[in-house]
């Protein structure tokens, strides 16, 4: 198709979608309205189960199946990335040359790593109380490890990153979510039923199974993101195709 024709089709289509959408917007309840039946029910249900953060209650209790699906998407795409960015037959690995980083930057990274890690763990642990949760904290934890690549050296990162272990942790997070969900099935509970005592409102142990599922997500996300980034780093830093390498030696 020529560029010209494509632009015409695009313009017509875009115009039509815009008209459709704008007409719909005119019928929407105006921004900031007060009718949220499902949301109000969700808040009441969260309070009834002693979960201070309603969003966590929705994610890990009321609509926990969505989160299982979401976790599986993450799991599947990490697995997909591992498969897609594998080292193929016509590729070799090359040890990257050490990066030169200013000592002050290196010192900052070594200081910031544990701090970031702690903040990530805090965000995971307080998921059922204050804003945050397994996903947000998990990504922060994974990012903290990559400070080593960013500000120290790739090889430093490799030393603290036994990939096999992280892959197992990734799978374990996924399995744990399923298992916690199914744990009370034999006792007649529904799948993902909140079978644990709800605990005291606004304490770390409140919310029944919410903290457990939250932790499972945290483990999976942290491990999954590490594995994911490892594949990208491998490709960008280590893996070279054979012809590239030969030409590098020449």
């Amino acid at each position, binding site marked *: 198709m020529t560029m010209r024709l494509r632009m015409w089709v695009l313009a017509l*289509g875009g115009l039509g979608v815009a008209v459709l959408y704008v007409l719909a917007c005119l019928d929407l309840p105006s921004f900031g309205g007060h009718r949220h039946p499902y949301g109000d029910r969700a808040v009441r249900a969260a309070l009834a189960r002693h979960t201070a953060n309603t969003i966590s209650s929705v994610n890990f209790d009321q609509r*926990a*199946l969505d989160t299982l699906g979401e976790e599986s998407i993450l*799991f599947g795409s990490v697995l997909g990335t591992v*498969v897609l960015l594998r080292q193929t037959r016509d590729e070799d690995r090359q040890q990257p040359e050490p990066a030169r980083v200013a000592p002050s930057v290196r010192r900052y990274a070594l200081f910031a790593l544990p701090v970031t890690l702690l903040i990530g763990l805090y965000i995971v642990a307080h998921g059922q109380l204050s804003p945050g949760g397994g996903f947000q904290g998990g990504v922060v934890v994974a990012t903290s490890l990559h400070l080593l690549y960013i500000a120290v050296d790739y090889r430093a990162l490799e030393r603290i990153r036994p990939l096999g272990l992280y892959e197992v942790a990734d799978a374990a997070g996924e399995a744990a979510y399923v298992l916690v969900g199914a744990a009370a099935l034999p006792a007649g509970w529904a799948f*993902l039923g909140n079978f644990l005592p709800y605990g005291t409102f606004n304490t770390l142990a409140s919310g029944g199974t919410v903290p457990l599922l939250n932790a499972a997500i945290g483990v999976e996300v942290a491990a999954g993101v590490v594995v994911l980034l490892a594949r990208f780093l491998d490709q960008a830093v280590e893996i070279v195709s054979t012809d590239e390498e030969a030409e590098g030696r020449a």
Partner: protein
Amino acid sequence: MSVAQTLPLIVITPMFGAALLVGAGRRLPRFAAETLGCLFAAGAAVLALLALAATGSSAGQPAEWVGGWRPHNGVSVGIVLVGDRTGLGLATLVSLLVLAALAYAWRYFAEPPRRHAGSFPALVLLFQAGMCGFTLTGDLFNAFVFFELMGVVAYALTGYRVEEARAVQGALVFGVVNSLGGYTTLLGIGLLYAHTGELGFAQIGNALAGSPGTPDALLIAGFTLVVTGLLVKAAAVPFHFWLADAHAVAPTPVCMLMSGVMVELGLYGAARVYWTVFAGPGGMPAADAHRALLALGVLTAVLGTLMCWQQRHLKRLLAYSTVAHAGLFLMGLAVLSPAGVGGVAVYVLGHAGVKAALFACVGILLDRFASVDEHQLHGRGRELPWVGALFGAGGLALAGLPPFGTALGKAVTEEAVGGWATALFVLVSAVTGGAVLRAGARVFLGLGTRPADAGRHPADETAGEEEPETRGGPLSRIPDTMLTVPAVLLAAALAVGLVPGLRTGIGQAADAFTDHAGYLAAVLHGRAAEPVPTPPPHWTASGVLWGLVATALAAGLALWTVRRPVRDDVARWTVPLRRMHSGHVGDYIAWFLAGVTLLGALIA
């Protein structure tokens, strides 16, 4: 354990299997990993079959509220899984087909990625989990999540052979277009949520009933956007472009799944959303939905047929035949009646078996000769008589030879649509079946003149030289599994047409599927409602006759074509059509937007 309680197990069994395979995959030898994959797929299949058998006797639609959030006074905060016969039947079909694909792939691939023996089965299991979840869920957003799960895994599976240049390109196009479709659906979900304040199918339907009357622009836009994403998956024109590109390059076992059932799930989703959400008072008037679906269906069927006939790349040929059939399914659903749904259900079952079997045969050719090009393979298939027989039988079944399930489905559907549609159904079946038979005659029988210069092909065409998918060059002999799987699949397609019990079951499933009020009552109030029974799909004399006509036409068309010299150039009138299918992401996005506009205009 009640039927309802097994519903989540159908979804989580393959998920858990995938987690296990990845967790233990580094230590597992390939054999163990593949066995484990098959076991978990089979486990889910058994669960789905048991649940289906248990519902078969009662009229109920077992509903399981995940997390135990049962509704009080018709409102709940949870997500519901609904095990009506259509949903469970599709979950069963998915699981069985996954099992077939895994069995076919048993010794199929070249070495799996180092230390990741379990990746392929694990991805397929996740694919299965996504598809089963999509069939069972009764919640709009949850459907979107499972839709994305099957999407994400399907992109990875399509690009699985990363060393193949086309594979990664096709997977990328597939990923971009389908993701955009998913986001469109999500926008629609947002609009519907703003309108009704609910997310469950039944809950939204219930809320809409509160404001009967002609639908406003908001409802029309919501319906259009939600359905768009599902029609992208269903490869309705003009959202179909990704399908041929993805199918042409995906590993054969994945093609079996995508053509056999994933595309049809898009249609299922659209139909499910229509009947549960929009079919009641305050929803979309039936005439509007009918007009839109029928128009898209006809367009899809015609375009798919035209493109199918033009192909020499066998996988693309089969892919376009899937597009054509998806158009026929869409036309059947557009009738908006139990008869249409029942006919389509039979057709989908038969088509899944036939199409998967045909892909399996092509996979064998690819292994033997490192090509799926009709011209290059001319006569070389003579040494594979069994594969040829299966391929030919598949072609005849695709054309609608009674008593295959495809023939029954075609007959019932065309009768439901009625009138001029019969001619279109016969033509589409004849041409797509004829294209398969033509290819079969050239490849396996060596009929016609051998193309002088098979390696050459015009710029606007995709030829079929490929890297073999199997390990270390062609296998010493075809593994038994690779031959058994297509045979079993064809036998299953035959059984769909022959087993009377299946037909009554499908008839009841279709009655319940189209019963808007019954679904709402069953989900929100736990009341089993008996839908008004309609006659189940059955053979009629005219159906058999038209099936035979289509088959004869297909055979005649195939014979007539192979006797004529092979044309090297592309027929001039097809050039604009081919140019449309450019493989360019930008073009596809432009058509996508145009398609949304078209759909909206048809509905409004």
